[in-house]
């Protein structure tokens, strides 16, 4: 029996069959129910099939680990994508974390060659801040066992005005309880959403599934041999754009200090990593000279704050900034690939020296 009834004839037949049982409806007004009643068996079969297929999908694709082991991404700049790639690199000895300055300036393969310190993975992602960097590091450490974690500390990380914001990025790396601990508990709708997402993975992991679809298009898949390193193609280094971007980056900033809320988060992360027996280093990311022209005093104060933070916890600093000029940058904060390779080699050298010291 078909569940589709198209003709008025069929509807009329339904009305006739179910007429006696429809006591509440107005005359000639039966809605869709007669159709449902006469096709109850077929509808039941359809619903059963639907349910079985959804359960099979959940078990076979998501719960079996198939999705985790096969998911590909086209854009590794956001945390969930980065975590998906990282899941296939559990043997990394060195973990690099931070914001996009880390993601675009360190090629783990080149660093590993220079420092002879084993495989690495770049877990930096766009627009990260100390809170999300902390959360990402903790998530990565659930399946990675690095000997060294290199944290990129951008000037904004020690900004006195920076504070935790519960945004989409934060929700990708932080559990509801972690968000609540940061003072941003989920409301009822968000809690329902999170619960449903944990039960039904096609919903919970929808952004990653869509990312996978994007990666299926020819030439779109991210090359995972780059181990998390990524720089967006093209350049945005005309003078007007550099100045405009720098102005935007340094608008509404506070005063950099080693006691800034973000600095405290990094301090706590360092302590926790050390408690786990993992060595820690800070990386000072290179910035375009325009940034220094537009916000020189601010960057100098940030430098002092970062050094103070590093000194207080005896964290070694990796600083390769001196060897880069304007032509090495894609934009205000990100290196072009050739410069990133040089930067990575320099970082590797510094790490080798650190190991010998």
């Amino acid at each position, binding site marked *: *029996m*078909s*569940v*589709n*009834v*198209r003709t008025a004839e069929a*509807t009329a037949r339904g009305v006739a069959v179910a007429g006696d049982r429809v006591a*509440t*409806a*107005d005359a*000639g*007004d*039966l*809605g*869709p*129910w007669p*159709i449902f009643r006469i096709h109850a068996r*077929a*509808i039941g*079969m*359809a*619903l*059963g*099939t*639907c*349910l*079985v*297929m*959804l359960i099979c*999908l959940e078990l076979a694709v998501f719960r079996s680990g198939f999705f985790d082991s096969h998911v590909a991404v086209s854009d590794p700049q956001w945390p969930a994508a980065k975590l998906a790639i990282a899941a296939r690199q559990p043997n990394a000895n060195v973990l690099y974390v931070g914001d996009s300055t880390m993601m675009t300036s360190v090629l783990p393969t080149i660093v590993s060659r220079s420092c002879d310190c084993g495989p690495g993975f770049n877990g930096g992602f766009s627009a990260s801040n100390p809170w999300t960097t902390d959360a990402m590091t903790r998530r990565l450490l659930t399946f990675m066992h690095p000997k060294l974690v290199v944290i990129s500390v951008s000037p904004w990380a020690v900004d006195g005005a920076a504070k935790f914001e519960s*945004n*989409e990025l934060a929700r990708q790396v932080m559990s509801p309880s972690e968000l609540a601990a940061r003072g941003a508990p989920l409301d009822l*709708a968000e809690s*329902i*959403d999170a619960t*449903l997402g944990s039960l*039904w993975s*096609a*919903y919970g992991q*929808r*952004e990653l*599934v*869509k990312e996978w679809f*994007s990666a299926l*298009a020819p*030439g*779109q898949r991210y090359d995972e041999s780059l181990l998390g390193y990524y720089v*967006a*193609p*093209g*350049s*945005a*280094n*005309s003078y*007007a*754009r550099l*100045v*405009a*971007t720098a102005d*935007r980056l340094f608008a509404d900033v506070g005063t950099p200090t080693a006691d800034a809320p973000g600095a405290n988060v990094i301090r706590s992360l360092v302590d926790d990593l050390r408690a786990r027996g993992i060595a820690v280093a800070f990386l000072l990311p290179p910035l375009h000279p325009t940034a220094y022209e537009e916000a020189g005093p601010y960057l100098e104060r940030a430098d002092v704050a970062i050094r103070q933070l590093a000194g207080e916890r005896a964290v070694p600093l990796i600083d390769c900034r001196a060897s880069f000029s304007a032509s090495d940058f894609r934009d205000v904060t990100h290196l072009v690939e050739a410069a990133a390779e040089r930067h990575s080699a320099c970082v590797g050298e510094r790490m080798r020296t650190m190991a010998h010291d």
Partner: protein
Amino acid sequence: MLFNSLAYLIFLPIAWVAFWATPARRRLDVMLVASYVFYASWSIPYAVMIFGLVVANYVFGIALGRATTRRRALLAAFIAVDLAVLGIFKYYDFFLTSVTGAANAALGADLQPPLLTLVLPLGISFFTFEFIHYLVDIYHGDVAVHSFTKFHVFAAFFPTQIAGPIKRFQQFVPSLASIGQFDTVLAREGLWLIGRGLAKKVLLGDRLAPWVMDGVRAASDGAIGTTDAWVTMLAFALQVYFDFSGYTDIARGSAALFGFRIPINFDMPYLATSLSDFWRRWHISLSTWLRDYIYFPLGGSRRSMLMVMRNLFITFVVAGLWHGAAWHYAAFGAIWGVGLGLQHLLRTLIPLPPSRALSVGGWLFTMPFYLVSLAFFRCPDFDAAGVMVRAMAGQGVGAGTLSLRASLFVIATAAALLLTWFASRGEWTARRVTMPRLGPIAVGAAASAVVVIASLAAPAGSDAFFYFQF
């Protein structure tokens, strides 16, 4: 509540079951409850305000229908009330900021305007235009809706309350009489429209959005390459079409599930062969509203050439400002007003018989015109729009804002859309959906596919429909 949200996925079936499980005489009440739940899920105070506006306009309509003297004054007063509400929420801060800014510039003063900074009620522009249509048509002799419930459903109908299409009560209210009839074909068409709308929004519109943002950000930062500027505006043209027509599809599909037919809003707009043809195809319910309630009252095209051009200009500046309280929206409208005025002038001075060559030439002019005008629509201010337009004129600076693959994706999407439309000319809007007969197992499999697609379609972050802001 977004159409592509989990909340709507839960809300719609509940509303549907409640609606059809209720006797026909009470179904309008169910629809009203559903409509207010839908609106109040965003803001309860504003839902109360919308109720107040509905009551006021119902009373206005009855009063206007009964009045025998001073009808014109009454109409003006009633419309003024509606426009005042819209003005306070949407235009007050804009007006005051503009006036104060001009005064400060002229006098060298530093006056601070007392801004209200109110949140714009969702759909207020659509509500207001429907109320004005209702009052004006009663003034012109149509009979007012005496059933408060029917008027209420017309005004607050949840599928169209946030972003249209702008309905006409002459078509909508009579259809309420046949609300007891469940139309299987219409319901199936509704499901198809909802699926198509979600696919447009999620698979196409949302995919294009990041590239549009990159391009607009580059223009706001002061530099964008020529190719990047054109691709950005092409991407935006596609995004806004897929987003808004996707929304309209879902609105029409949702309405169809409850037995309501809502008019189409788009008719292959990017095949338009002239500027005027474009507005016959794009956001049809708005453009016909503007025609009937602004352009015609101003005199339409039955005036001198200069007056017609003036009428077009005023109509489209209003259209621009309807989209947003900012001068760049007014500029968008003004560009179209001037363009349509010049087109009218040319057609009068050099009348040409319709031909294929004229159509092709018209299309080749209309589309670049539209893309350039979109720079004023999408960019946040005149500076950014100026950078974008200069870049489109060949004065671009730099390159690489958009990757080659992004550019190719945008161009391929545009080509695919045009080819699809071109291949189905004349059938696209008229064709009814015909689906093959499926057995229960196949239906169950299809239903599971729909659940998966709906799950994937749910928004993350700020994937709101573009036209909600208007």
